[in-house]
């Protein structure tokens, strides 16, 4: 009972301190509002505004028809260049795609001679190149088919493929990146807030003060977990309802309360690792450097930015230990695919277990380290 009271009262102190730290407050608001909308609107992972040029050596109705078919928002209006320009312009990175329509293209198509049409793709623009090549192929095929259908009747293929994209029919980036943005912010802030809370107490000498009072390290650490966790849970929840659902108008399939339960469990882990780092670092700058080295991989490799399947095996195994991977995975399952507790509980359990481990490590270091800095 006393323990709970202590944890409660220490936590209220934490909240009061936090509400006076305008820099951190600003960081939280920025991270959960502006940063989320910006990521949602960045279109970094879809074909958008790709630069394209056309070398029209045919100058026929068909070639002009193809040139006019590349439309925004996927492509920028195509630029007409000469064949000699292809190499220098592509070397300079001016165009990601160059369509080369050979001479007599229309005549050969109509004559059934199957002429070659070349699409040059700058394969170093990895995201656009892959998606754009497919698009370009479809567009050109459709245009030729359309042109031909005027000339002769075409018949339906014997076998047809219909591809549905489940959970996100238009495959828009905003839907994905806004929620992933929130997830990354949760990790970032939980570590910074709790780590900084520990280092600040040590730098101000108040940690000594706490340890001399009848309080245990468990109570001190737990108070930071709940107070910082509460701030971030509230911020993440508001961000999901207000920014994602209302402002960005993104449909959310699953249960937000269930997701918030997951957030709380994940926050236990993230604040615990923050506290642990706070006990390792001797000063704020050291905490900052340590944070960069731990947060960046945890964030970049969680599956919130790039697919996990393409990692080498050893790395894929390693990131599977990281709770941030579990977090991303259950967030996608709950929010996009509407999964329930029966599906996600193993990931909840894994996150909580690893969180407990770091919490225990932090407690072990607490007393021995706290007093040593002056």
């Amino acid at each position: 009972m006393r323990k709970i009271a202590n944890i409660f009262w220490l936590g209220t102190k934490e909240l009061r301190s936090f509400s006076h730290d305008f820099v951190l407050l600003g960081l939280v608001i920025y991270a959960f509002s502006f940063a989320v909308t910006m990521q949602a609107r960045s279109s970094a992972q879809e074909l958008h505004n790709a630069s394209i040029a056309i070398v029209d050596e045919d100058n026929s109705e068909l070639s002009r028809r193809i040139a006019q078919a590349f439309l925004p928002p996927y492509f920028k209006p195509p630029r007409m260049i000469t064949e000699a320009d292809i190499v220098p312009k592509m070397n300079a990175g001016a165009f990601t795609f160059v369509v080369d329509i050979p001479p007599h293209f229309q005549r050969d198509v109509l004559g059934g001679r199957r002429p070659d049409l070349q699409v040059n793709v700058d394969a170093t623009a990895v995201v656009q190149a892959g998606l754009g090549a497919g698009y370009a192929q479809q567009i050109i095929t459709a245009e030729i088919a359309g042109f031909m259908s005027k000339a002769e009747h075409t018949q339906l293929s014997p076998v047809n493929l219909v591809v549905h994209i489940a959970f996100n029919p238009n495959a828009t980036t905003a839907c994905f990146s806004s929620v992933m943005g929130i997830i990354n912010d949760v990790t970032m802030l939980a570590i910074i807030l709790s780590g900084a809370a520990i280092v600040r107490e040590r730098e101000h000498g108040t940690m000594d003060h706490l340890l001399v009072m009848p309080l245990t390290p468990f109570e001190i650490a737990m108070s930071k977990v709940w107070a910082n966790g509460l701030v971030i849970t509230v911020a993440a929840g508001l961000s999901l309802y207000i920014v994602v659902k209302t402002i960005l108008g993104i449909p959310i399939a699953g249960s937000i309360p269930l997701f918030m339960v997951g957030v709380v469990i994940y926050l236990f882990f993230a604040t615990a690792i923050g506290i642990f780092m706070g006990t390792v670092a001797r000063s704020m700058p050291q905490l900052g450097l340590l944070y960069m080295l731990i947060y960046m991989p945890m964030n970049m490799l969680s599956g919130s930015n790039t697919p996990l399947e393409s990692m080498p095996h050893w790395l894929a195994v390693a990131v599977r230990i990281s709770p941030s991977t579990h977090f991303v995975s259950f967030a996608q399952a709950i929010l996009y695919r509407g999964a329930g507790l029966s599906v996600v509980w193993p990931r909840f359990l894994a996150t909580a277990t690893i969180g407990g481990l770091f919490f225990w490590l932090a407690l072990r270091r607490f007393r021995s380290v706290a007093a040593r800095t002056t």
Partner: protein
Amino acid sequence: MTGHDRRLAARLENVGLRYRKVVALDAITLDLPAGCVIGLIGPDGVGKSSVLSLIAGSRQIQSGTVQVLGGDMADAGYRAEVCPRIAYMPQGLGKNLYPDLSVVENIAFFSRLFGQSASERAWRTAELLHATGLTPFADRAASKLSGGMRQKLGLCCSLIHDPDLLILDEPTTGVDPLSRRQFWELIEVMRSRRPGMSLMVATAYMEEAGRFDWLVAMNDGRVLATGSPSELKASTGGATVEDAFIALLPAEQRAGHKAIEIPPWRNPDGHPVIVANDITCRFGDFTAVDKVSFTIGRGEIFGFLGSNGCGKTTTMKMLTGLLPATEGTALLFGQPLDATDMTLRRRVGYMSQSFSLYTELTVRQNLTLHAHLYHLPAGKAQARIAYLVNRFGLADYLTHRALDLPLGIRQRLSLAVAIVHEPELLILDEPTSGVDPLARDRFWELLIELSRDQDVTIFVSTHFMNEAERCDRVSLMDSGRVLATDTPARLIAARGAANLEGAFIAFLEQASGPRIAPVAATTDHADQPRTRVRRWFSPRRLFAYTIRETLELLRDPIRLSFGLFGTALLMLVFGFGISTDVNNLSFAVLDRDQTPESRAYLEELRGSTYFIEESPLIDCNDLERRLKDGAVSAAIEIPPGFGRDIARGRPTWVNATVDGAMPFRAQTIRGYLEGMHQTYLTDPAVRTTVPAAPPPADIEIRFKYNQDFKSMYAMVPTIISLLLALFPAILTALAVVREKEMGSITNLYVTPVTRIEFLVGKQLPYIGVAMINFAVMCIMALFIFRVPLTGSFPVLLLGALIYVTTTTAYGMLISAFTKTQIAALFGTAILTVLPAVQFSGMMTPVASLAGSAQLMGRAFPMSYFVPISVGTFTKGLGFADLAPDLVALAVFVPVLLLLNRMLLRKQER
């Protein structure tokens, strides 16, 4: 000391200064005579430091005029001309020194700042080291010097260029009395060698001020009085300077002040509260506390007297259980000390050196929080808080935040908080440092009341002699050892000294043997080389910063390993982790047809290297469930009658469902499936009844530069660019802000070093570090990731060199706007990561970005290095192709340098 002549060292007229809303100086007018020792006296925060920093030219003048050595300090030209004649030692022991550098390296740095040649540096250093007795410690790091030695080193660094005006801001605060005495002897020697030199000293020790030639008494941003010590004493009728100062204070501040009387200690024979037996504390090979023993009785006021860093704090921490004792035993209330014993902790109150309050909380919140944490019953807590507020005079401040309280009030609040639970023992670590004499006396009245009326045992540490004299018994401490413990009177008697200070000095001398006395200069150095200070540019001053920065970096293992291995670590993780290749995709099949035709269709999928097949789906529910929990990324459903329809030539449909949670992956999967479907249709091996008509034209997709279309070939060179943007920027931003935070930025303000010299000098080592990073990452790219370098290496190298010059300069730009290291760190990270990842062609080519985003990308150097890095690694390009990017990058260098010069201040505001 010599009498002063009529010339003026400095003249201040109507000088005002405010820090935001706080008035630091209120229209001060002051004439300071030359050729003598001038003392500025008064407690902390009354404006002494502000006056000195204005005279030194380190702080910008806000209003009024400041004339120093006959010229106007508002004129930047005159400041540059006069600064070689002034030396300034800011407040805080060795604040302008560099703790990681050795004694000679520190002196050499200052010598280079004044452009001295190697030969001049050699004779000057030797002479100063000899005069101060530091010669045996020449190679010791400044951080490992004792307070007294650090002070002497500060003096060496100040005197390296023979100044006409020496400004010392609280040079002796927190130093033991023997070192203090030696310091003043040394100053006398130095003055005898340069008789014309003027000296200005700020001090909080009133007894020290008695020997200065001329005093300025200050309070609350105003000058109370000026004159020689005897004049001040005569005009106020005080016996000492301290009495005179108190008499000069405004009446309302003096109200209620009376000389302190201490009733005798009632029962010196009760049970001892603390018994320390040979307690020792070691950190590595450093012994902080060496076999300290003492006994403290109930109700006693027991004092620890000693300099900063002599082990007072460590001893106190051991007795509170914060630090485990390496050796020895301690008994508290007759029980062995146990850090986990909660009932013991309830009987102790502790006030640490730094006023351990939550400064964001109000007075009332601080008190109630502690009452809660000690579990006082609600009613009792209220009564107790009411009593404390009343007794400690806090009623007017209840809703003020602790941060906004004057120091004296804050200290009373700290004490109130420490005794909220009525402890039997109070441990107070330097509770009164920095507080004015009146507030100190009020604080002691409270301590005496607690001890004498309530039998609270008080264990207090201090470096003020007059406070030590009030204790029942005192331990004199030096370098981790207790020299003597007894009542002040008996200590004085034992040494036959006039006062406690004399006794302490005698004990110190006995413990350490005779110290090396300062020596006057014997040789005449008239024929030695002396350098004239160059006004505009001096490579020596530039390299002073380069050498120092390099040494510091080499001795800071955290920053160094972050700088050298951080990039390698992240390169490894990102290089393998950030991949836009979509493969190893899991799919499952719901084949409702199970005919040779359906198997033929699926064969196309099964043969693909992109897909891995999971166990077949049972029904629609299974399909939905497995997509939901992410077990499969795609599900293929073949309708019943698929084979029959093909046989009859009726069009039939295959359904594919793709997990759209990650849009990029979903689109790519759709592309793969459609591609495979096309292959199936035209595959001559597949015997569908009617072969589809051949397409009218062949569309050939040529992936240039990267035929296998593996993202690693593009990502690895891009990641090199990203990490070279991030890390060098963070390191330089930290390097500049660190100087601001530590206070050594003052050296830029008060020495002839120019801003360009400072900026470039500090930047060079980080360009070196960044180039090492570049080399390591190139080797990793070639041998770990096996990305071949197909283009010109010299172009890549040149590009990288220009690029890291711009990114280090970018870090400096950010440091211009940040005050703390943590802000610099996160500021740089946020301002670098966003443009680097989003707008510099990492994922999306810059050419494809929309208006403002493209503008942001074009204004960030990484946009121009990505083409160079990717171009030389993957595209096989050379100088001719990349010249425009190299030129664009090169333009950033002078632009950023000039911008940085503009934003860096040569004076503190």
